């Protein structure tokens, strides 16, 4: 829901605190669950993630969540699915070039990141997403990763 999405970005600082507090708990729980049940509970867990993040952020389930790095504004709501900041077509009122009634998600992202403690991560270069992950759960992906902080990106081994 668009209104809830705007509400969440305005409370990006609170959302960040909530994320920092809940994320380790969620991941630890999911690690336990996946160990015991394997992939049996993947569907309800994915549905839960979709329901919660969908309600709060209009999450599009890209499968590699960046919300904590983009001011709690989901970049996949950008019609161009840009993951590194706004395009050059943002309207004078800050609305989207493609959807004139929607605030540019990157205008919101910058707004949100300025409210956050660790908002500066928005300045880091991200690589475009892995399309195979679309529709999948980021929570489960992180829970199954051996080292959750290491992301698999094509630019991983580059010093450029």
């Amino acid at each position, binding site marked *: 829901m668009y209104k809830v999405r705007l509400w969440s970005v305005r409370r990006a600082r609170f959302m960040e605190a909530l994320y920092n507090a809940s994320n380790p708990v969620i991941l630890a729980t999911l690690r336990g669950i996946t160990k015991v049940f394997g992939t049996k509970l993947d569907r309800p867990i994915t549905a839960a993630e979709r329901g919660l993040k969908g309600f709060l952020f209009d999450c599009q389930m890209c499968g590699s969540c960046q919300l904590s790095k983009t001011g709690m504004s989901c970049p996949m709501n950008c019609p*161009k699915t840009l*993951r590194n*900041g706004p395009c*050059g*077509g*943002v309207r004078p009122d800050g609305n989207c070039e493609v959807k004139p009634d929607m605030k*540019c998600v990157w205008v919101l992202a910058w707004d949100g990141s300025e409210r956050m403690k660790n908002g500066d991560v928005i300045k880091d270069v991200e690589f475009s997403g892995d399309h195979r992950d679309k529709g999948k759960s980021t929570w489960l992906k992180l829970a199954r990763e051996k080292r959750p902080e290491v992301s698999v990106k094509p630019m991983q081994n580059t010093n450029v």
Partner: protein
Amino acid sequence: MSEADVTDVQDVKRVGTNPGDPLPQLPGHVSHGRFEQVLRAGFFAVTTEIAPPDSADPDEVLTRASLFDGYVDAINATDGSGAHCHMSSLAVCAILTRVGYSPILQMSCRDRNRIAIQGDALGAAALGVCNALCLSGDGVQAGDHPEAKPVFDLDSVSLTRTLKILREESRFLSGRKLDYAPKLFIGSTINPFVPPVDRRIDQLAKKIDAGAEYIQSQYCFDMDVLRDFMARAVDMGLPEKAFILPGVGVLPSARTAKWMRENVPGVHIPDPIIKRLEGADKPLKEGRNICIELMQQIKELPGTSGVHVMAYRQEKWVGDVVKRSGVLDGRTPWSPDTADTTIGTVN
């Protein structure tokens, strides 16, 4: 054939028997291109934009390019600008390199995924293209095929990084090795004039971080915003990492200016400019005067390395504004002496 003859042949090959042969790559340069050489030599560069024809006739490309002869250092070939279909930017560039021009291949993320884009980068370099410009691309809703599927597999920053990986690491994104890397001078774009205005500088820093070596901006008609933007860029040391070429435009009338402001995504034209055009006896001439004044002010602005002149449907005036602005300081950019405009035929 004697040994001396062999050497002669090699020498001729090195300097190029054909105008389109690559120039020697200078130390510290990333490409073989003349555009990079002009910038790294410290000259104030002038670039412009060619409108790719709605045609399969290569002569139309060369005729359009010849309008800029002796006034510009590089020519951008737009990639379906405004989401309208035209001749592809890669083809335009390939035609231009045949006669020795220094084209800039605009690569938009709207129409091609990472497989196609990397293939194009190799193909472009193989055809003698030395410069690429990474863009996100206008949305399909802005063009004449709004029913088309927007691709946007990569974004402009990821594309910039992709070209850098191809060149520096000589590999595809997948990791598969290249036999010969595409030596492309990598550019990207910035629009300091639209929201979030105060964060656009971070967007510039990000693009440079991703690998952009030169930056061309969207139309600048608001010097106050550009002055502030460039001051912040200088504070952050960005002009030392990338050459910045703000964009200027030639407006033919107040009506067109208003239309552009309303209908072309990302174009910001302040009211005083429109009032000036409205009040002018000869708006066409006034539009050029505005452009000239902006070019002169941009040249004086710390941190700028050149100017990018966009004169859609006003291409014949590019030479005039460049000449009268004096930004080239009497320098005459390369042009084909006798451009052979009959290299291709349409059967």
